[in-house]
């Protein structure tokens, strides 16, 4: 009896102190609150029919983005906790152990569970509309991708209150994440959750690759694709080639931990460095996976709000292809200090610097797009314009880090922390916010408020620079990353305090954004035209939000900036008047993706806690749901003409 109680107390981490109790309490309250609210307002069926079982790319995109914003909140809270701990020398607000767990979950969540779903959310929201088709190539698979990501995110976040979080950094290097140094379920959470979401991501890559290759409207040649869609195309290729390497690295490490093999343990003849090598073969392309779509968003936003066509279209495409290829041959710059020798280090140093060239080309193209344009500084445009100098700082410090001898000085210091936050926040997060303000009306039929949007931008952008710019100097002064506290007398204290103030300001910026969402939902300007920005690509040709079938009649494309051309020549998106509608073939909703992901979740739990019965049940469930799909013959339906006519009439397009 006593044994069971002790086990449970430890399992649910009740012996870990008030921070965990508070989290338990809040999680409990939120869960009960959600269940009660859904039951009280009788929303369960609505939720199931409209969201949980949907295969509609627009809804899946929205769910990805909601999840991403929630994860930004979780990761941001982690960031603020760390900044609070570091704000002054000799603080012991967090213990070393807790600090380790928090920077690990912060980094992992921000990259895999915030940046990834945010960009994949935009894939879903924009790509099918931009190329003039009705859904992605494999809508059912798309739902599976989403739910795999979702259950992985849930699993990973659960580690905070059940069993303990991973604490080996988001890179999870052996030997210190091997069982001998790091027992317990924590690291397994990392390995299993990333494995599950990785499967979903590979499927997304395949899905969008095929969608863009095969589903374009007639006349939409590759060189007429909107630039965002181009960026998604390139990103999908990188995903398909990079993620399998992560899968292998994680699997080998999990086999080491769960089954006692010795791939990465030195004592058993393994090679820990090989993990680091594999991790970054995926890891560097990964950072381009989260930045290229942001480049794409930027291209759309800059050209829309400069009211000009994008400058240097082909150069943009070529430079993205160059970046994609180069991103696979630079990975050693993350471990120059391993000491692989001058030949290796110089090669990878030079290849890294070469990436600056295509990136520079893109920056100049954005600038030339704005040049002599009628530039309109909406919130989306502010984020896009803010992106350029901030990302530039990130990029230039990156070139500094690419010089191997110099990197021996900067490596794993706060200089590095500042560098990658400039690329990830100044690049990806700014791009994501630009996309949110830009596509918000398309997603919800409401505009976000411009005034609050400006407040959001300025507080966040200024806070960001106050937070991270001083960290370059902390790095020069010798402060290392991942240290949970530091002694007085190095002169680091005041700089850290300034940095923390900046972090708080970013938090305020985030709250203004949340307030903007709530305020606009109630009082925001409705988007009745479907084209609030005088847009250029096809997503602006249809209603906001777009009808289930996107386009009643698939448009024929006559050039780049297709919708702009149609507006110029006064064409309707439904083609010449009097073309009759035909029933539209659409995929059925399915509850199986979410159920299959539940089984992945269960299997994941089994592998994390080494409860093999649970793992086997979960895997069997996955197999059975997969097999069921093979015997599903009624997976589509037709939208009747009358319903299309009603929808189109309501949209004023008849």
């Amino acid at each position, binding site marked *: 009896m006593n044994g069971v109680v002790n086990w449970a107390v430890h399992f649910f981490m009740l012996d870990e102190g008030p921070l965990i109790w508070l989290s338990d309490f809040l999680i409990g309250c939120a869960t009960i609150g959600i269940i009660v609210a859904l039951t009280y307002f009788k929303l369960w069926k609505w939720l199931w029919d409209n969201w949980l079982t949907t295969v509609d790319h627009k809804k899946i995109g929205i769910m990805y983005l909601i999840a991403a914003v929630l994860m930004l909140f979780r990761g941001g809270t982690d960031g603020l906790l760390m900044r609070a701990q570091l704000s002054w020398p000799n603080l012991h607000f967090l213990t070393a152990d807790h600090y380790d767990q928090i920077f690990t979950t912060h980094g992992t969540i921000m990259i895999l569970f915030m940046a990834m779903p945010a960009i994949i959310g935009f894939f879903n929201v924009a790509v099918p509309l931009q190329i*003039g*088709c*009705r*859904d992605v190539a494999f*809508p059912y698979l798309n739902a599976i991708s989403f739910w795999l990501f979702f259950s992985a995110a849930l699993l990973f976040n659960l580690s905070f209150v059940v069993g303990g979080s991973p604490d080996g950094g988001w890179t999870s290097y052996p030997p210190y994440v091997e069982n001998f140094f790091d027992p317990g379920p924590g690291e397994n959470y990392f390995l299993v959750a990333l494995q599950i979401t990785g499967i979903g991501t590979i499927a997304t890559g395949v899905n969008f690759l095929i969608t863009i*290759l*095969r*589903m*374009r*409207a*007639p006349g939409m040649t590759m060189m007429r694709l909107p630039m965002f869609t181009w960026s998604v195309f390139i990103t999908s*290729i990188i995903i398909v*080639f990079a993620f399998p*390497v992560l899968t292998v690295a994680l699997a080998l490490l999990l086999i080491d931990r769960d089954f006692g093999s010795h791939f990465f343990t030195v004592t058993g003849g393994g*090679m820990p*460095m*090989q993990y680091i*090598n*594999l991790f970054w*073969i995926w890891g560097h392309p990964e950072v381009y996976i989260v930045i290229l779509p942001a480049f794409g968003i930027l291209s759309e936003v800059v050209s829309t709000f400069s009211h000009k066509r994008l400058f240097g279209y082909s150069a943009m495409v070529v430079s993205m292809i160059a970046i994609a*290829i180069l991103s*696979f*041959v630079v*990975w*050693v710059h993350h471990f120059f200090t*391993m*000491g*692989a*020798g001058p030949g*290796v280090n110089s090669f990878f140093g030079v290849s890294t610097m070469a990436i600056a060239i295509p990136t520079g080309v893109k920056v100049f193209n954005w600038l030339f797009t704005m040049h002599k344009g009628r530039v309109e500084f909406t919130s989306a445009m502010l984020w896009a314009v803010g992106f350029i100098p901030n990302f530039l700082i990130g990029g230039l410090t990156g070139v500094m880090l690419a010089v191997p001898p110099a990197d021996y000085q900067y490596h794993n210091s706060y200089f590095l922390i500042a560098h990658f936050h400039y690329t990830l926040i100044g690049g990806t997060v700014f791009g994501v916010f630009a996309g949110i303000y830009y596509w918000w009306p398309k997603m919800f039929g409401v505009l976000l408020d411009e005034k609050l949007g400006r407040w959001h931008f300025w507080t966040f952008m200024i806070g960001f620079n106050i937070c991270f710019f001083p960290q370059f100097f902390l790095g020069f002064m010798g402060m290392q990353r991942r240290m949970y506290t530091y002694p007085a007398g190095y002169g680091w204290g005041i700089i850290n305090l300034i940095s923390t103030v900046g972090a708080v300001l970013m938090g305020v910026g985030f709250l203004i954004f949340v307030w903007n969402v709530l305020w606009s939902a109630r009082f925001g300007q409705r988007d009745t035209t479907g084209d609030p920005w005088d847009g250029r690509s096809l997503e602006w040709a249809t209603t906001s939000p777009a009808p289930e079938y996107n386009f009643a009649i*698939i448009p024929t494309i006559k050039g780049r900036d297709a919708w702009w051309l149609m507006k110029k020549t006064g064409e309707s998106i439904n083609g010449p008047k009097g073309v009759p509608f035909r029933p539209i*073939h*659409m*995929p059925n909703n399915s509850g199986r993706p979410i159920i299959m992901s539940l089984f992945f979740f269960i299997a994941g739990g089994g592998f994390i806690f080494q409860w093999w019965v649970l793992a086997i049940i979960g895997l069997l469930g996955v197999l059975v749901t997969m097999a069921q799909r093979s015997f599903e013959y009624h997976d*589509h339906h037709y939208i009747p003409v009358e319903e299309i006519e009603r929808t189109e009439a309501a949209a004023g397009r008849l």
Partner: protein
Amino acid sequence: METKEHKFHQETGFPWKHVIGLLLSLVLTAIAFWLALATHQPPAVVITIIVVLGFGQLLVQLYMFMHFTESDDRAWQVPTIYFALFIAFTVVGGSIWIMSFRSIVS
């Protein structure tokens, strides 16, 4: 869903190709396990044979499951295969080059 000319590759009859593919890939995997666990060949021999088996596995995947020969879109397939070869070469060759520092150090 379908835009443009959309060809459904409706398969009729028993999916022999898939079943044979599945059996072949299982057998290839089993041989690799057996080699590593139950025989006592020198590592170099085992590794060489496993690489050959892995190549066979690749062909099984491409021909049995991915309908490598059935595509009507050569224009994309060829560059993609070249890119895949480039990545495979970079990853394998690069890793060997990078990790060979161990022999210098020790």
